[in-house]
């Protein structure tokens, strides 16, 4: 398929109006040595019908969360997405638009982001949210950079109970900076408070905490915050947005920056992207924040309208003085998240969170009754993801469970080499009792022999 519309007559006509005889003349400024000449390497196009077929075939070589009953989480979750979401984001008015550089003809995008910012603030308990970052991990990285800029310090305190993959992204972002990462030990599945006290001092730019953490356990933010020795130290919380439907807001517990992975807000799994990173913080830091922010204003006739604001921070103005080079957001994904949050609304998000909690605890109870399975962190509160310790080779168990049609969870050893036999299991509102019961009975059978 060619999406260039010109007929050969039109090409002819346009060229001759320019005084050229051939298309080649348009490229005569390119030195011969820099020209590409091996036409034989260029393959032919294919018809839409054939490409559809090809792509369908490729897609069918992948196994989806419809093929498996999914108990896998670890930052990406198989949740129910209301039908409204795709009906909104498949409107070309949203998906084919660009960055709202011309606010007069971009009020749809701008007002929507203002609403999105509001919802994120309400979710997190923060004052300001930006228009989103690439994903949760990059949002966390940008939060660390922002914390360093605000505090003018360089020590970053990270509990081991924070997702190691995401931490790895943070470290990549900080390559070449003077950031110094200080790890805090884990104890019983949560941050080790003694170690935290040891590691924290007045030189700390930021303390990071995942909420719930990478074992599903709800960290005690208030207690962590209490260990801070300097007012300049920023408390950066990376929070699960569905958990925030039930749990106290990080903003009410002392967080200065709250970020998170927004996939759960109506975005399909899509092998990890596109997702969105939400990014919220206290008002006083607004001039240090990365990304774009939309603000309310009025037009010259006094009518309400919205614009990109704090534009001096936009990279295309600041250039080398910028502290972040991000110049997009995950625009369309924020539409998805807004439609999700508006569809579920106040009651619905609570209900999703409640059902996830209840179902996870049901499964936890059932599983940990099985011989050979025990609670990894029995006395800690968790939300909808938990760790069990299984007295078996987890790789084999996983293989067998997949054959039975289940994605049984994440083997923690891959992220935490010291954690043998631990399986991280996520339960969302989509899972039914029936699915969980048969999951339990299959595991039981396999463990028996």
């Amino acid at each position, binding site marked *: 398929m060619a999406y260039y519309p010109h007929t050969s007559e039109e090409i002819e006509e346009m060229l001759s109006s320019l005084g050229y005889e051939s298309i080649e003349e348009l490229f005569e400024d390119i030195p011969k040595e*820099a020209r590409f000449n091996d036409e034989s390497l260029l393959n032919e196009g294919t018809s839409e019908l054939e490409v559809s077929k090809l792509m369908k075939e490729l897609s069918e070589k992948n196994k989806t969360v419809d093929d498996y009953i999914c108990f896998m989480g670890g930052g990406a979750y198989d949740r129910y997405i209301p039908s409204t979401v*795709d009906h909104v984001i498949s409107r070309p008015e949203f998906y084919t*638009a660009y960055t709202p550089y011309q606010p007069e003809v971009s009020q749809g995008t701008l007002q929507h982001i203002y609403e999105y910012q509001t919802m994120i603030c309400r979710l997190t308990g923060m004052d300001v949210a930006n228009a989103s970052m690439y994903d949760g991990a990059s949002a966390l990285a940008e939060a660390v950079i922002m914390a360093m800029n605000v505090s003018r310090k360089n020590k970053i305190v990270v509990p081991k109970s924070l997702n190691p993959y995401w931490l790895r992204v943070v470290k990549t972002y900080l390559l070449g900076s003077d950031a110094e990462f200080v790890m805090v030990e884990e104890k019983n599945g949560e941050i080790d408070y003694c170690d935290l006290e040891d590691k924290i001092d007045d030189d700390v730019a930021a303390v990071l905490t995942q909420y719930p953490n990478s074992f599903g356990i709800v960290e005690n933010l208030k207690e962590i915050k209490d260990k801070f020795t300097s007012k300049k130290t920023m408390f950066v919380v990376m929070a699960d947005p569905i958990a925030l439907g039930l749990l106290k807001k990080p903003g009410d517990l002392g967080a200065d920056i709250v970020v998170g992975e927004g996939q759960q807000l109506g975005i399909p799994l899509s092998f990890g992207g596109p997702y969105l990173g939400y990014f919220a913080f206290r008002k006083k830091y607004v001039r240090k924040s990365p990304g774009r922010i939309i603000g309310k*204003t009025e037009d010259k006739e006094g009518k309400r309208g919205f614009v990109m604001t704090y534009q001096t921070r936009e990279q295309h103005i600041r250039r080398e003085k910028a502290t972040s080079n991000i*110049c*997009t*957001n995950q625009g369309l994904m924020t539409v998805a998240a807004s439609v999700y949050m508006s569809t579920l609304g106040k009651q619905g998000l609570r209900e999703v969170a409640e059902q996830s909690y209840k179902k996870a605890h049901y499964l936890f109870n059932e599983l940990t009754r099985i011989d050979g399975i025990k609670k990894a962190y029995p006395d800690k509160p968790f939300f909808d993801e938990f760790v069990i310790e299984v007295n078996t080779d987890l790789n084999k168990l996983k293989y067998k469970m997949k054959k039975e049609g289940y994605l049984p969870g994440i083997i923690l050893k891959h992220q935490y080499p010291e954690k043998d036999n631990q399986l991280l299991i996520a339960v969302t509102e989509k899972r039914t009792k029936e699915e969980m019961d048969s999951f339990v009975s299959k595991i039981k059978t396999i463990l028996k022999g």
Partner: protein
Amino acid sequence: MTELIFELTSPGRKAYTLPDCDVDVDYDDKIKDFIDEEPVNLPEVSEQDLMRHYVELSTLNFHVDKGMYPLGSCTMKYNPKINEDIARLDGFSDIHPYSADEDIQGLLEMLFDFEKDLKILTGMDKFTFQPAAGAHGELTGIKIFRKYFDNKGEDRDKIIVPDSAHGTNPATASMGGFEVITIKSNDKGCVDLDALRDAMDETVAGLYLTNPNTLGIFEEDILEIAKIVHDEGGLLYYDGANLNATMGISRPGDMGFDIVHLNLHKTFSAPHGGGGPGSGPIGVKDFLTQYLPVPVVKKDDNGNKYKLDYSLENTIGKIHGFFGNVGVVVKAYAYTKLLGLKGLKKVSEMACLNANYLKDNLKKDYYLKFNRLCKHEFVLSGKNQKAENSVKTLDIAKRMLDFGVHPPTVYFPQIVDEALMIEPTETESKQSLDNFIRIMKKIASEAKNNPETVKKAPHTTPVKRLNEAKAMRNPDLKYENE
């Protein structure tokens, strides 16, 4: 005025249903203290209200399916509809990112095959699809710069960026911990070789460049530029924002670039989504493959299966929480299959034809600083209109809105006063280009004969010119009326 969704809220109203909870479990004592008594104060609307709200919002937007969008450097080409359908196939959209390799063979095959095409197209040796946007690709690149020189034990702390560069280039350099050296363009709109030679030494990590540059001009001395940088041990980074100009005609790899990023949402027709998601894969020459972020896609030893390989020796690590915006890559891949690399060459030819056609037809009406062959875009200036009738480029841009076309990128590149950076792309028809020319000429004439009409524009948009100063002065960044 469109109501905010919060203003439509009625307490207790619902747009959702959920299955009844089929397990009987209570909150345990451990969690109780952590529970927030009040649910999050999200909107409460009906599905009908919700759909009307978002449909109404959508109608306030300009978009590619509405009209021409000649934003220079943004490549606002048509987004084929088939791509949207393909990306929504369950087999792409419903895969968990931690799926085992054997469960994602189709996806890995696609990435592997796409990489093959991109290698041919760019002349590079290895790609990663992890960067989620062009700027993210740049960031990945700068981290490779950093790690590469650290590994070599070379202490290079500067990056050269031309004054015509995209703003992301210096911002990125600075995020890599490098000092930015800006070099001036010469009177042909290109990198000044002497300035480059002066700036380039063993403390410089390399040069960020886009070619054709932001003036739409092909850097004729590219081979010499590469030589200067390489001779001093530096690296050459290619900003792929302008790749739409030279596909199948001139390859960054052959020009001497060591790292390139591509913008799948520009050149490869994935939609821009109102500001994202994008996808900015980067490709590197062989000697840098070990620095790429992990994982990369490989065929296994017997060549039958695909796998994700985490074993890169000097990897900079991970740059994305998972593996990048795979859903965007799917669209770009489908597009590439549809056109073939041959079709992509034709894309560049038509994109350049359209740009030159516009340039030629508008240069009498607007000042053209660099009057020469351009590639996919060119830069006009409104400085005459400003001088003669105090009509600023911003006014011209706003006036265009009244005629149903989106304005070009304005005030960029900064080396052209009152710049109008125009990139029509290959998907606009001749009729559409002629219409654009007519509008631009009409505005030029209005600027002379009726300047107030232009200065007060826009007249027909959903809102009139907005008070940006007020937004800064009294920041209102969320709806407070809880």
